[in-house]
């Protein structure tokens, strides 16, 4: 029972990471109908930016919480800019072209970031400094580290902020309008380019947060860390019904939980397959994900 509780804690922590990245996928898909494969690499970029910021800032401000917040802010800012730049120079020129060409460009951008990352940051794993001194708590025989709590709190705060943004601000309303119908939104006087750019900025900064939160917990970061994590986060987004913000969070949590359970009770070599097995099983019964709208085709 205790180990089961432990697995749940670990699953929640992994799942909230997936959820944070999945949000970026789902938001971009919502406005552009684009599977932004470069998103996983933005997460990698976020981890590296965090690494640089941590080396520069750590121990200079006096309290580790201020350090952490500064590191997060820096990384989010850089990644948001990267996201906007990618949208401006790679995706915007082909917005009117066939959808597949945008997808190929997304793959190209992803390759560019991965290989550029290997070139700039080096291919070897880098050790991420411990910005938060680790302490462990024992409750009911379950071990929780303060880093896990931090990951969870951070993820929750980000999701609440995002929800507030989408449903209670003017820009959020515009975003929902664009995702409903881009052309109609444009006719209503919405600056769609600005909306799409800000979607990319928000999604990328969420990915940056995920990158740093993950890096605190794992021994080393490398330029290819975004490939598999990005893919699974995308699966999480599809699981919840792509384009749906709530779905991304639920999908991420389900996926993280399933993966931890399989690794804990089954064979850890199968953990990469479980995400897809769940996905295929679910999509066979609910072809547009958990919360996705099943759009009837009109003739």
């Amino acid at each position, binding site marked *: 029972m205790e180990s089961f509780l432990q697995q749940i804690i670990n699953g929640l922590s992994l799942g909230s990471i997936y959820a944070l990245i999945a949000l970026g996928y789902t938001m971009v*898909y919502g406005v552009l*109908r684009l*599977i932004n*494969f470069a998103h996983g690499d933005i997460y990698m970029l976020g981890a590296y930016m965090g690494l640089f910021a941590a080396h520069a800032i750590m121990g200079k401000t006096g309290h580790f919480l201020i350090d952490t917040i500064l590191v997060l802010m820096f990384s989010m800012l850089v990644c948001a800019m990267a996201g906007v730049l990618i949208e401006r120079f*790679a995706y915007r*020129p*082909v917005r009117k*072209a*066939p959808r*597949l*060409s945008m997808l*190929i*460009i997304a*793959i*190209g*951008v992803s*390759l*560019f970031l991965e*290989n*550029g990352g*290997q*070139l700039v940051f080096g291919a070897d794993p880098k050790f991420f400094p411990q910005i938060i001194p680790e302490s462990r708590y024992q409750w009911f025989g379950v071990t929780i580290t303060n880093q896990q709590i931090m990951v969870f709190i951070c993820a929750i705060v980000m999701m609440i902020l995002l929800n507030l943004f989408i449903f209670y601000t003017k820009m959020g309303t515009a975003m929902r309008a664009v995702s409903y119908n881009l052309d109609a939104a444009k006719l209503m006087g919405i600056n769609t380019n600005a909306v799409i750019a800000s979607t990319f900025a928000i999604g990328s900064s969420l990915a940056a947060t995920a990158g740093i939160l993950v890096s605190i917990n794992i021994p080393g970061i490398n330029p290819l860390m975004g*490939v598999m994590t990005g*893919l699974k986060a*995308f*699966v999480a987004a*599809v699981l919840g019904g*792509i384009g749906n913000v709530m779905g991304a969070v639920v999908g991420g949590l389900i996926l993280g939980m399933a993966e931890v359970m399989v690794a804990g009770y089954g*064979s850890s*070599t*199968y953990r*990469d*397959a479980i*995400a*897809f*097995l769940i*996905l*295929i099983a679910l*999509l*066979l019964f609910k*072809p*547009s*994900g958990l919360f996705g709208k099943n759009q009837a*085709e009109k*003739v």
Partner: protein
Amino acid sequence: MSFWRRLIHSSAFYPIACITVLALLSLPVRYFFVDGYLDQGPYLYQILILTGINIILAVSLTLINGIAGQFSIGHAGFFATGAYVSAFITVTLGPHWHRWFSSATPVSSWLSDSGLLLFGTLGAALATALAGLLVGIPSLRLRGDYLAIVTLGFGEIIRVLILNIDAVGGARGFVGIPKLSTFFWVFFFVITTISTVYNVLHSSYGRAFLAIREDEIAAQAMGVDLTRHKVMAFVISSIFAGVAGSLFAHHTMYLHPNTFTFIKSFEIIIMITIGGLGSIEGAVLGAILLTILPEAFRGFDSFRMVIYALVLILIMIYRPQGILGRFTLWNKRRRKAP
């Protein structure tokens, strides 16, 4: 009609002519490239063979993605299935086979090697046909991006399964595969693939595929059996991916599951999109370009893959419909370009 005109217009002419040319070519290829008469011979030979294998992969994927309009990114899974099944067959059967067919002379050793390769390839084709059937079935319910992600998932599941089968080496990789792929057989299957897909495209099935691509509901209203045609596209395409896998396995002589990640599927998608989606010629051109480009950039050293990615992005930005678009050779003989 004169004899020559009848010859040229007979349907068997092009394949037979191509295979004859191929057989004639394979001797000089062996002399110049394999035996290393040219300085860079063996290196160029590697690229040549890989180009051939990539052409098979790209042209077969064109059938699903370009012609039937179903979005699959799981081709690497079929490729892997073919590679592993055929390698398993030839590795277990190989010693017996060579005992049965004593190969004393060069000709008989060529025959016995080719026989073994074909046997392995046949096994691969059957196995991947089954896999294609399995993957094709969900495509009946899913469309667009959801189908894409399910095919991707199938590909990854196949990879993880292989990783856990100890009989084929698991995570250690599969070693000791005999070298059976030759220039002749690789390009023999290139021609087979291209002519099969070409002929399917111009048959009633091909028309049905195109109808499905353009508008599923309209196609259904016109009496096209969606289920049957979609599954058929998947099965035919995956068979050839399996053949490519078999040729690949017996060329590199070593297999590792990490060769067959979704990145490989992306590569094949990039080939057919760069060349021009839906065009067989485009797929061939894309396969050639994408095999040669990374090699040509070797001079840039560590910048190689970055430049490759940039070229990819630029091509897509300036020519979103692909280099060839929907251009086709042999246009005159057809009433209407698909």
